[in-house]
């Protein structure tokens, strides 16, 4: 009888314990863009599920619709996402409109130090107002716009000889933006193995952010600034400076003389397709895609190499990447914070890099073996030292769409001059900041 009582008590205790576990376990939804690193995160998160008992679901939205879909969700106070890896430019709106949970107290409580992450990523992905110790995200995915090229073509004797004859110098990775243009023009409509190839795949997309991300890759090396004095919104003479005009004219020349036909509305997917199908000698894209490109059976491996966005007057790369935030409308904020705590651990960050995600944790980036851990790792470090981002203001969407229009009008639709395009952009942005009450 005593044994029976003990067994009954044990069974009750077990069922109570399991009930307690079930009650705490949550079904968390993480929202992000649908791209290669997202698949790596699914793999990585399995470990979190095993450790915490929480179940992870994912909502991945293709890049062209990512901003539309997720910002609509946030603006309507939707509960779809508990965790969001939102674009860096959203941080201002996320913070000011109350979409993101402020993480300072949580970081203090859990001893998560922002000093453990690369400075550029903390500044860009986590802080609002910019540079202040007010954190709304943990750096999740470091990224920048870089370049890759057909190493096998660059190594061919006949091509090298032709290039030397044409330009008087050796064919190799470009050291300046103008060298890049020269190489792209050299390959334009050249016949290689019986196929007509083209110079470079660049960003020209009109609808979301494509052409702005591409053009800033030229503007930053020319020394482009958004304001004369940071925080004053005094854009006249900075946004439309002679250097900015020159950079814009350069990008137009690159587009007109060295890209495949019909390349009028192209972004990440089109750039990858053009390269993988053997159409272009060089292409720009985000570092996030480089592991996949290197692994490609047709154009990866020995056939590909990578380089950081070349300098001109100065070094400069367009920032990509995102931080991970807890959505303020989520009913499962505690579990979401648990995920962030787990994700911030150095060993998880190391696994993240190993799976193809770009960790921004110093323990990963400063590891002596990091540079040689992948053919693009060294370039990634270099790029992250000189990254610049677009406006991160709450009105970023208006600012971005104005730039998309002015750039596409000038570069693709041949409307006006570079000077006029940038002057009009200053007018557009001034109007936006006036509406915002900042001017």
């Amino acid at each position, binding site marked *: 009888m005593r044994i029976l009582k003990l067994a009954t008590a044990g069974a009750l205790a077990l069922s109570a314990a399991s009930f307690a576990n079930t009650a705490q376990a949550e079904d968390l939804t993480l929202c992000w863009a649908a791209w290669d690193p997202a698949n790596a995160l699914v793999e990585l998160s399995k470990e979190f599920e095993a450790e915490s008992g929480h179940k992870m679901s994912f909502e991945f939205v293709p890049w062209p619709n990512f901003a*539309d879909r997720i*910002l609509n969700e946030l603006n309507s106070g939707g509960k779809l996402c508990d965790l969001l890896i939102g674009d860096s430019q959203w941080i201002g*709106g996320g913070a000011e409109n109350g979409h993101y949970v402020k993480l300072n107290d949580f970081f203090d409580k859990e001893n998560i130090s922002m000093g453990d992450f690369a400075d550029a990523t903390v500044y860009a992905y986590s802080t609002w107002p910019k540079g202040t110790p007010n954190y709304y995200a943990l750096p999740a995915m470091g990224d920048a716009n870089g370049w890759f090229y057909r190493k096998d073509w660059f190594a061919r004797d006949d091509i090298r000889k032709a290039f030397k004859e044409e330009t008087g110098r050796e064919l190799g990775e470009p050291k300046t933006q103008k060298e890049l243009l020269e190489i792209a023009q050299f390959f334009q409509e050249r016949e290689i193995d019986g196929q007509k190839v083209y110079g470079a795949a660049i960003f020209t997309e*009109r609808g979301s952010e494509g052409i702005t991300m591409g053009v800033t890759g030229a503007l930053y090396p020319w020394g482009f600034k958004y304001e004369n004095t940071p925080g004053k919104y005094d854009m006249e003479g900075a946004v439309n400076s002679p250097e900015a005009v020159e950079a814009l004219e350069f990008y137009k020349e690159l587009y007109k003389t060295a890209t495949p036909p*019909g390349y009028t509305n192209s972004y990440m997917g089109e750039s990858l397709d053009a390269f993988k199908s053997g159409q272009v000698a060089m292409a720009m894209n985000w570092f996030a895609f480089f592991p996949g490109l290197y692994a490609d059976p047709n154009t990866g491996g020995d056939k590909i190499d990578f380089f950081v966005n070349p300098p001109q007057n100065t070094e400069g790369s367009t920032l990509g990447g995102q931080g991970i935030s807890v959505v303020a409308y989520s009913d499962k904020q505690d579990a979401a914070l648990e995920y962030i705590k787990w994700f911030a651990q150095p060993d998880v960050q190391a696994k993240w890099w190993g799976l193809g995600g770009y960790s921004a944790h110093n323990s990963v980036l400063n590891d002596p073996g990091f540079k040689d851990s992948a053919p693009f790792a060294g370039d990634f470090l270099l790029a992250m030292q000189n990254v610049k981002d677009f406006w991160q203001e709450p009105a970023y*969407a208006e600012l971005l769409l104005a730039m998309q229009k002015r750039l*596409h009008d000038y570069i693709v*639709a041949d409307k006006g001059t570079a000077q006029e395009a940038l002057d009009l952009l200053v007018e557009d942005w001034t109007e936006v900041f006036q509406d915002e009450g900042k001017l």
Partner: protein
Amino acid sequence: MSEKTAERVANATPVHIARKIKGLSDRTIAWIFVGPTIFLLLAINIFPLIWTVNLSFTNFKANRINRAIDYVGLRNYERILTDTDVWLSMQATAHFLFWTIFFQVLIGFTLAWLINKKFKGNDLWTTIIVLPMMLSPAVVGNFWTFLYQPQIGLFNYVVAFLTGRDASSFEMLGSVDLAPWSIVIVDTWMWTPFVMLICLAGLRSIPDYIYEAAEVDRASKLRQFFTITIPMVLPFLMLAVLFRGIENFKMFDLVVQLTGGGPGSTTELASIHLKREAFEKWRTGYSSALAIILFVTVFGLASIYVKALNKVKGK
């Protein structure tokens, strides 16, 4: 309804229902039936319209709900009417509207006239011609982007074959000159069958005896065409123009899929411009004013047109 039938219907009403509605006037019963519909109409159409008018006088932004809303008077309307981008989008819409309707009426009527002749395989040809309008605009937009692709697109190859030009020497979607025509071509391809069907209905409604009488009077075929066929089909044609006009004024999906409004803003029709202002820039007050202006324009034009249509029908 005869008195007997009315009596039969009244007797058929179950007793317990009859008891409940006993004492209710006809007007009350009518309101009970019509009420839900009127409520839905007010909730779904009228209230949003009034709300939009209200928003059009504010600086409200739907993505900044924490920000104070200020009434700005007619500033949004003033901005729209002096905004060159709005006028450019209206010009692009007018170009698209005029040429799509022109080609669709021309080709649609010609096809209907040919199909109306009795020949072998008539039904099969009708089915084949009607196929494009059964497809989704998103699908049509997507596959035409491939057809227009300068390197692999069939359209470019056909043009190259006919003209001797290099297929990749022109870009239908990327050229400022050609892009407005590229969307006209696709819309014409897709919706000409619709106009054809309406014209066909018109042609088949003309009684044979009118042509027979004309034959007796020795009227030539050309004379018969201009004095019988065209006037009798005209109300149908005008109806087709009205339908296509309203549809194309708010055209969005097909053009977004094809050009996204580009290159630059060359094919940014009014509806695309409105969507960008409302749901990408989140200028809710401004876009409400733009929506009201577009609504008044369409409503005004449609009213004038319907009056003209009724006049033609009266004749």
